[in-house]
C-alpha cells in the first residue's frame, strides 16, 4: 500500500517538476508546480511528517501558488509571445548551473551521513515530528533562526507594502471610495435603507422631505 502511494506521489513529483520547465503556457506551468508541491506533501505524509505536509500544502499550494495563479490568469500567456528564447549561450549557462546544483546537492546528501539511504528506513519514535515537538524545537534549540526568519518575513511584508503604495496619491479632492470601519456599525442607520424592521411596518412613516430633514439634522 505505502509502496503504491509512494510511486504515485514520486511520479507526480517528477512529472510536475518536468512540466514546470517544459510547458509553454505559463498557466499550465503553474499548475504543474502545484501538482509537484502537493505530491511532495504526500511524500512527507509517507514519512509521517504530518505537520510539514500540511504546512507545505497550506503555505506553498495554498498561499504562494495562489498568487502565481492570480497573476498568470489575469495577465495570460499573450505577454510572452514574440519573445525569443535564451540563445545558445543562455542555454549552455543554464545547463552548467543546473549541473553544478545537482553535483552540490549530491555532495550534500551523501556527505550528511543520512543513514536511512539504502536501508529499510530510519526508525522513529511514536509522535516523532508532531506539531508539539516541532513547536518545542522552534522555541528552544532553533529559537534564533526562527526569530530571524520571522523578522525577514516582516521585512519582506513591509517592503511589499512600500513598493505597492500609491505614489503621489490621487488628484486633489478625489478620495478613496468610502470603506466601512468598525465605527459605522455604531452609528444610527439612515432612514429608508430597507431594513426588515421597516418592511414589517415598524418604522414611522415619513414623507420624503421629513426624511431629508431628519438626515440633515445633527444628532
Amino acid at each position, binding site marked *: *500500500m*505505502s509502496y503504491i502511494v509512494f510511486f504515485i506521489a514520486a511520479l507526480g513529483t517528477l512529472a510536475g517538476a518536468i512540466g514546470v520547465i517544459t510547458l509553454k503556457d505559463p*498557466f499550465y506551468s503553474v*499548475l504543474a508546480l*502545484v501538482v509537484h508541491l*502537493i505530491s511532495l*506533501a504526500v511524500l512527507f*505524509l*509517507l514519512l*509521517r511528517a*504530518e*505537520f510539514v*505536509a*500540511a*504546512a507545505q*500544502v*497550506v503555505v506553498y*499550494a*495554498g*498561499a504562494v501558488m*495562489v498568487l502565481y*495563479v*492570480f497573476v498568470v*490568469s*489575469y495577465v495570460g500567456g499573450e505577454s510572452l509571445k514574440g519573445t525569443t528564447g535564451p540563445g545558445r549561450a543562455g542555454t549552455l549557462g543554464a545547463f552548467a548551473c543546473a549541473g553544478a546544483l545537482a553535483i552540490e546537492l549530491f555532495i550534500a546528501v551523501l556527505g550528511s551521513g543520512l543513514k536511512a539511504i539504502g536501508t529499510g528506513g530510519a526508525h522513529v519514535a*511514536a*509522535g516523532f515530528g*508532531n*506539531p508539539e515537538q516541532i513547536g518545542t524545537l522552534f522555541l528552544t534549540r532553533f529559537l534564533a533562526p526562527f526569530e530571524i526568519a520571522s523578522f525577514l518575513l516582516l521585512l519582506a511584508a513591509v517592503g511589499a507594502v512600500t513598493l505597492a503604495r500609491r505614489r503621489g496619491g490621487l488628484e486633489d479632492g478625489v478620495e478613496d*471610495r468610502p*470603506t*466601512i*470601519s*468598525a465605527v459605522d456599525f455604531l452609528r444610527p442607520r439612515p432612514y429608508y435603507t*430597507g431594513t*426588515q424592521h421597516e418592511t414589517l411596518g415598524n418604522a414611522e412613516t415619513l414623507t420624503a422631505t421629513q426624511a431629508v430633514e431628519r438626515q440633515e439634522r445633527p444628532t
Partner: protein
Amino acid sequence: MTPLAIVDYYEAWWIQIIKAVLIFAIGLQIVPVVLLAERKLLGRFQGRYGPNRVGPYGVIQPLADIVKLLGKEQSRPNTSIGPLYILAPVISIMTAVATFAIIPFGDAPHIFGTRVGLYGIDVSIGPLYIFALSAIAFYGLMLGGWASGSKYSFLGAMRAAAQLISYEVSQGLALVGVLITAGTLSLTQIVHAQEGMWYIVPQLAGFLIFMVAAFAETNRAPFDLAEADAELVGGYNTEYGGGRFASYYFAEYLNVVVVSGVATTLFLGGWLIPGWHSEPAWLDPFVVLFKMTLFIIFFIWIRATLPRLRYDQLMSFGWKILLPLATLNTLITAIVVVAVHG
C-alpha cells in the same frame, strides 16, 4: 498504515472502510435535507410557502432536483478547456468530502467489544488538515472559472479565490485561540478539554470571527459575491450544467455542513451535553448532528436577513477589521493562558 492519525488503539481495515462509507453516506444524506431546509425556511422568511408540490410538504423536491440535474446533457462551451473543465468540480467535491472525515461524532466507544472511533480520522494536525484541504479547494473554484472560457465565470472565480485567501487568514487566527486554550490540535481532545466549559464562552471573540470568516469561506450570503447573480449571472459555475453543476452545488452545501461541524466541535463542545457526563455513547452522534443543525439554520437565517456586501467593502472588512481583531484575540488569549497556567 494510516498516516495522519496517531491513536492508542487498533482498528481493523474493514472497520475503517465501513466507517468511511458510513460517514460519506451520512454526508450524502444531510445535503439534500439542508437543500430542502434552506428552500423551505427561505420561503417562510420571505412570507411564501417554498417548495410544496413534490411529495408531502414538498419533501421530495431535492430528489427531483438532483434527478433533473443528473439527467441533463453535460454541455460544454466551445471556448472551454476540456480536461480542466471536467477536473474542477471533481476537486471541489473531493476536498469537501475529505474535510468531512475529521468531524468527530463521538468519542471512541466499545462497539461489539472493539474500540471504534466515531470519526473518519483523528488527525494529529487537526485544523491544519482543514486548511490544507481548503487550500486545494481553491483550485476547484479557480480552475472551474478559468477553464470555462467565459468572462463571467472568470470574474466569479477571481472573486471567490480572493475572498477565500483573505478570510482564511482570519479564520485560522480565530482558531489559534481555541488551540492555545485546549493545548492540543486533536479535535477529539479539544472536545474533551471543553468538559468544564464550552469554548464559546472564553473564546467568544474567536467564535464570532470564525463564524464571519466561515460565511466568506463557504461563499454564503452576505459574502456570496462570487455568485452575485445580479452582476455575474452565476459566478464560477455559470457555464456548468447537469451533473457537474450538481457537484459544485453539492460541494458548496457540504462545505456549509462541514463548517457547522467544525464550529460545533471547537466552540460548542462537540458531543458533550452540559450537566450530563455519563450519557450513553450512542447518543453522541445525535448531539453533534443536533448542534450542527443549529448552525445550518443560522446560516440560512443570515442568508435571508442580510443583503450582499459590495466587493471593496468585503475586502476592507476582511483585512482591516477581522484580521486585526483575530490577531488581538490570539495575543490576549496567549497572555491570559500564560498568566493563568504560568
